C-alpha cells in the first residue's frame, strides 16, 4: 500500500518537473510569438528619437518633442511641441484617410460575406435536400472547384475585370469572392444532418421552397454560418494580394492593408511611430474580437479542417 503511494508521489513529482519544463519551453515560444506585437505597440507609443536610439523602454519617456514638419509649416516652435502618443496616432489618421480605409474594409468584407451566403445557401440546400437530374454532376463540380485557389487565377480574373472596365471599383474587390465553393460544400454537409421531417412539415404547412431556405434552413444553420462568417471576414479583412492587384491608384478605394502599405512606401525612415500606430489600428479589431470569442474564432478559422 505504502509502496503504491510512494509510486504515485514519484509519478506526481516526475509529472510536475515535466510540466515545469513544458511551461518553460512554451513560455520561450510565447515570447518569440509576442515579440513583434510588443514592438508594434511600443513603437506606436514612442517619440522618433527614442525609436532611433532604442531608448525609453516600452512606453518611452512621453516627453513633448518638436514636430519638425509643423515647424516647417511656419508655426512657432512652442506650438509644435507634441506628445508622442498623440502625435503618432493623429498622424496616422491625418496623413492618410485611415477612417475611409477602415470603412472600405468593412464594406468589402461584409458585402463579400452577405453575397457568399445568398449564393451558397440555396445551392447547398438543393444539393443536400432536393432530388434532380444532374445533382451528382454539380456536386462533383463543387468538389473540383475546391481545388482552385482564387489567388492563383488572379491574372485572368484581372484581365476579365479590366476588359469590363471594372478595375478600381468596389465591384472588383468583391466579385471574385462572391462564389465560395467552400461555403457551398460546408453548408451542404451541414444540411445533410438536418432531418427531412422538418422540411416535409414545412412543406405541409404550405411553405414555398424559398421560404424553407430562409425561414427553416437558415435559422438551423446559424452556428455553421457564424463559423463560416468568421472564416470569410478574417480572410478578406487581412487580404492584401487581391486589393493590391485591382486597386491601382484610387486611394478612395484602399482597404486597410493597402493603406498601411502606402504608408510604408513613403515613410522616410524616421516615421516609424505613425506607421506602427496605423498597423496597431488595422490589427486591433480582429485581435479584440478573437480574444472575446476565442472558441468561435478558432472554430471558424480552422473550418477548412472539416473537409
Amino acid at each position, binding site marked *: 500500500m505504502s509502496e503504491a503511494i510512494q509510486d504515485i508521489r514519484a509519478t506526481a513529482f516526475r509529472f510536475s518537473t515535466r*510540466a515545469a519544463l513544458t511551461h518553460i519551453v512554451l513560455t520561450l515560444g510565447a515570447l518569440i*510569438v509576442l515579440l513583434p506585437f510588443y514592438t508594434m505597440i511600443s513603437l506606436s507609443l514612442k517619440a522618433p528619437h527614442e525609436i532611433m536610439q532604442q531608448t525609453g523602454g516600452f512606453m518611452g519617456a512621453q516627453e513633448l518633442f518638436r514636430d519638425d514638419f509643423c515647424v516647417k509649416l511656419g508655426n512657432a516652435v512652442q506650438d509644435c511641441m507634441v506628445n508622442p502618443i498623440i502625435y503618432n496616432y493623429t498622424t496616422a489618421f491625418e496623413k492618410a484617410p485611415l477612417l475611409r480605409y477602415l470603412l472600405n474594409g468593412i464594406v468589402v468584407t461584409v458585402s463579400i460575406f452577405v453575397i457568399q451566403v445568398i449564393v451558397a445557401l440555396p445551392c447547398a440546400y438543393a444539393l443536400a435536400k432536393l432530388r434532380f437530374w444532374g445533382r451528382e454532376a454539380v456536386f462533383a463540380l463543387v468538389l473540383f*472547384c475546391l481545388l482552385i485557389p482564387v489567388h492563383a487565377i488572379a*491574372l*485572368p480574373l484581372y484581365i476579365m475585370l479590366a476588359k469590363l472596365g471594372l478595375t478600381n471599383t468596389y465591384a472588383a474587390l468583391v466579385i471574385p469572392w462572391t462564389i465560395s465553393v467552400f461555403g457551398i460544400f460546408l453548408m451542404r454537409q451541414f444540411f445533410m444532418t438536418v432531418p427531412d421531417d422538418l422540411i416535409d412539415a414545412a412543406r405541409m404547412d404550405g411553405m414555398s421552397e424559398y421560404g424553407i431556405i430562409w425561414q427553416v434552413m437558415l435559422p438551423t444553420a446559424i452556428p455553421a454560418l457564424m463559423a463560416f462568417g468568421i472564416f470569410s471576414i478574417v480572410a478578406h479583412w*487581412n487580404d492584401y494580394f487581391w486589393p493590391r492587384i485591382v486597386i491601382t491608384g484610387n486611394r478612395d478605394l484602399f482597404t486597410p492593408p493597402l493603406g498601411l502599405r502606402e504608408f510604408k512606401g513613403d515613410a522616410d525612415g524616421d516615421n516609424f511611430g505613425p506607421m506602427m500606430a496605423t498597423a496597431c489600428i488595422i490589427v486591433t479589431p480582429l*485581435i479584440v474580437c478573437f480574444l472575446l470569442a476565442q472558441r468561435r474564432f478558432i472554430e471558424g478559422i480552422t473550418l477548412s479542417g472539416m473537409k
Partner: protein
Amino acid sequence: MQQSRAHLWFIGPALALMVVILLIPIAIAAGLSLTDYSLGNSGAEFVGLENYEKIFTRSTYEKMFGATFRYVFVVVPLTVGLGLGAAMMIHSLGRIGDIYKTIYFLPVMAALIAMAIVWEFAFHPTIGVVNATLERGCGTILENWAWYAKGCERTFPLWLNDRDYAIWTVSFIGIWQGFGFNMVLYLAGLTSIPPSLYDAAEMDGAQSGWDRFRLVTWPMLGPTTVFVITISFIRTFQVFDMVEAFYPQGGGPSKSVYVMMFAIYEKGIQQNLMGIGAAITVVFLAFVMILTLIQRWFVERRTHYV
C-alpha cells in the same frame, strides 16, 4: 416532393459564378500562356510553348523555383513539426495550456502585411531589436561560436537585405505566422483520441512516452497530419504579402526571394507580360492541384462524401 423547377433557381447562380469566376479564368490562363498577349494590345501572337520553355530554361525562373521551393520546404516541415510539438505540450497541460493556445494563434489573426512591416523593423540592421539583442551577447561565452564572433567583430547580418539570409529570414516569419494554425488543428485531433487507447497500449507494454507517441498518438493523428501537410503546402505556395512589402521591386537581393506569386504579379501586373504570367499561373495551379489530389487520395480511402 412535387415536381418543381425551384432547384434551377437555387443552383443556377452558384453554377454560373463557378463557371465564370473559377473555370473560365483557368481556360483563359491556359490559352494566354501560349501567346504573347499584353493588356491593351488588340491582338496577340501565338507563340506555342515558348513561354513554358522560358520558364524551364531561363535563370530568372530557375531562381523563382529555387526561392519558392526553399521557402516551401523549410516552412512546411517546420510549421507542421512546431504545430504538433506545441499541440502536444499544450494538450499535456490541460486547461492552463489554453493561454499558450491563445498566444500562438494571435499571428494567424493579425494581418500579415502589418506584421511583416513590424518584422522588417525588428530585423533592421542598425535600429532593429534582433541585432541589438545579438550585440548584447558579445564578449560572452557565445563568442566561442565562430559565426557569432564574426558578427561581433564586424556586423551581424543584414538579414532581409543579405542574399544569403533573406529567404531564410522570410521563411522564419512565415513559420512564425503559420504554426499556430497547425497547432489548433492538431489540438482538435489530440482531443479526439480516446484515452482508453493509451491504457490499452500501456497494458500491452508501452511504457515510455515515446512508445505511447509511436503506437497511439502518431497513428491516430494520421488523417489530421495528411490534412495539415496539404493545407500548409497550399498556404505556403501562395506566399506574397511579405515579399511584396519587403521587396516591391525585383524579389529581393539577387532575386533570392523571387517566389511564384510575386513572379505572377511582377510579370502580369507590373510589366504587363500576360503570356508569361499566365504560363506561371498554369504551372502554379498544376502544383497545387496535384498536391490536393494526393491528399484526396489519402483521405478518400477513409471517408466518402456522397
